């Protein structure tokens, strides 16, 4: 079938082009639908449709004059299956072939072939572009979905982590508004995360100490963190008020938050309910206290019987028995001291020390203490005396012209002096002990110095710990409970003083402690 120019109706061309466009519009939704589930299938179907269309159009208008026209069709399909580009290229080649074969046969201008081939090119190009765009959009969408789901899964992981840990976690911004509040925090405070969001941290957390005084006002840990630039830990006497129930004692740790550029953006707090832990400590302390009380009776009885044995009016014993009973009594005395110290320690741990604070002269007390220890010192051939301070004894404005009295429990400070002097005597073999007192505006500083063996630096760190004893062979015979310095420090600090040591091996030891002076 061959058309001549006269048979061409211009509108046929428009109709073909429009038909092709319409067909594309119809095909597209199907294409999209299939593409969602199976992109490959969709592309391949498109290839078949393209090829069919090419073939139909070309054939409708006479087609290339060859018996092997079906081969062209198959080649096109295969080409499209392999790749869009190859398919498109092959379409181009077959179009050129058709045109060329036509031109070999007859010279015409615009022909149905031309129009149909153009439509085919047009359709192919459009479908290729559509597919390219579509693929790009699908790819972008799936990338976005992947990133989103990665983000959501990360976020959910983060949220899951935060909501499942038992510690409370909250974050505040630089205005101390709460920006994050985890599940455990909700449980411990009675505030929900929604409620807490945006509120000031002191409204939600409302920290108080054991005297029920607000910590948030005077001692805000977030401010401390930002001012010092380091982590802050509050692990004692910090209570958070539960909205509906009673306060919970917590141990908390605060850290600053920086952004990627290093500037401060807020603070994060992790806190833990330590009520159970504190209760256990209290029970342990009570146990030690009860056990110590129980020990006192048999120890007293033991000491009593031994004293009876040593009493010549009651018992007749030989010298050997006397010697051994004497040693047994000393041991019992040591036990008795240990029990007494244990009881003091339990009282310290519970904050139950009773005091009778008065104004007194620390100088006179020191004189008394020395009198009491004189005998023990002389037994060992050591001297003990009060001396003038090596440097200026009274310094600081308002320090002079005022009484040199101090405010504390006189008996307990006497205990402190006894303990320090006893220690000094234990560790000094020759020379003696000197005591001097200096005064500044607020405190009196007492120094107990000895000419003993000195304490090595690593031992000094642990000196005030319970049951610590400086480890060297000389001290093993020296005895002592290991609790003396712990109790001494507790007493000094109870009255607002400090205690510290200066010591070098072979050069002796100096213990210093301060007591607040009275205002008048």
């Amino acid at each position, binding site marked *: 079938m061959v058309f001549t120019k006269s048979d061409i109706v211009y509108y046929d061309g428009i109709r073909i082009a429009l038909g092709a466009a319409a067909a594309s519009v119809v095909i597209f939704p199907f294409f999209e639908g299939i593409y969602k589930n199976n992109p490959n299938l969709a592309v391949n179907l498109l290839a078949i449709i393209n090829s069919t269309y090419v073939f139909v159009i070309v054939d409708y208008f006479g087609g290339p004059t060859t018996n092997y026209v079906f081969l062209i069709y198959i080649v096109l399909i295969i080409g499209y299956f392999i790749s869009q580009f190859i398919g498109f290229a092959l379409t181009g080649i077959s179009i050129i072939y058709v045109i060329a074969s036509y031109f070999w046969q007859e010279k015409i201008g615009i022909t149905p072939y031309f129009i149909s081939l153009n439509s085919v090119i047009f359709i192919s190009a459009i479908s290729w572009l559509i597919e390219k765009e579509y693929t790009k959009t699908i790819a972008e969408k799936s990338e976005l979905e992947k990133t989103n789901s990665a983000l959501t899964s990360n976020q959910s992981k983060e949220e899951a982590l935060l909501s499942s840990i038992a510690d409370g976690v909250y974050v505040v911004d630089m205005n101390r508004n709460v920006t994050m509040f985890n599940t455990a925090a909700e449980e411990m405070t009675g505030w929900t995360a929604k409620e807490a969001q945006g509120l000031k941290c002191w409204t939600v957390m409302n920290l108080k100490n054991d005297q029920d005084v607000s910590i948030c006002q005077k001692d805000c840990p977030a401010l401390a963190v930002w001012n010092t630039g380091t982590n802050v830990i509050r692990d004692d006497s910090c209570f958070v008020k539960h909205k509906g129930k009673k306060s919970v004692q917590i141990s908390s740790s605060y850290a600053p938050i920086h952004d990627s550029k290093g500037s401060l953006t807020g603070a994060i707090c992790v806190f833990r309910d330590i009520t159970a832990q504190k209760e256990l400590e209290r029970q342990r302390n009570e146990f030690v206290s009860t056990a110590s009380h129980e020990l*006192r*009776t*048999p120890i*007293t*009885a033991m000491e*009593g019987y031994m*004293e009876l044995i040593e*009493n010549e*009016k009651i018992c007749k014993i030989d010298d050997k028995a006397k010697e051994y009973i004497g040693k047994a009594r000393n041991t019992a005395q040591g036990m008795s001291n240990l029990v007494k110290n244990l009881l003091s320690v339990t009282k310290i741990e519970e904050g139950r020390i009773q005091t*009778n604070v008065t104004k007194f002269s620390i100088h006179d007390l020191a004189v008394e203490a020395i009198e009491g220890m004189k005998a023990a010192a002389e037994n060992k051939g050591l001297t003990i005396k009060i001396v003038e301070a090596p440097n200026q004894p009274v310094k600081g404005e308002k320090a002079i012209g005022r009484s040199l009295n101090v405010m504390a429990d006189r008996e307990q400070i006497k205990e402190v002096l006894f303990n320090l002097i006893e220690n000094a005597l234990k560790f000094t073999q020759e020379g003696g002990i000197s005591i001097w007192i200096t005064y500044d505006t607020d405190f009196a500083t007492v120094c107990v110095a000895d000419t003993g063996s000195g304490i090595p630096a690593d031992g000094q760190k642990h000196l005030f710990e319970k049951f610590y004893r400086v480890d060297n062979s000389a001290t093993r015979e020296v005895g002592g409970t290991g609790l003396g310095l712990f109790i001494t420090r507790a007493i000094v600090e109870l009255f607002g003083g400090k205690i510290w040591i200066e010591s070098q091996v072979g050069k002796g030891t100096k213990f210093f402690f301060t007591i607040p002076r009275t205002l008048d």
Partner: protein
Amino acid sequence: MDCGIEENKMAKILLVEDDMALRDIYSARFMAEGYEVVTASDGEMALTVAVKEKPDLIVLDVMMPKISGFDVLDILRATPETKETKIIMMTALSQPADVEKGKSLGADEYLVKSQVTLTDVVDKVKKVLAS
């Protein structure tokens, strides 16, 4: 054992103490000093023995079962036979409040066991009996 000639040494002491070992020890010590010692192991017995034996001095423990030393002190001071008897209170407790209570109820002396030795107690006994 010598029975001293001085009046002091012939004195009779009533020791009220629920702990057996302490009762043993204090009795032995007091007897070594020449005193006559009678004992009671609780408050009720103490009241009976006090009226019957009419001691010169009562050494009275505070912490006892059934009725406490303070109650015994109170009753002793209310009973005509024992109103004037010298009484030394002994306790393991060292609260200032308890010392006050003892003094206010009429004890002549108040001793804290953990702060005094056996010799200190004997010295106090001698001092109270001499006064």
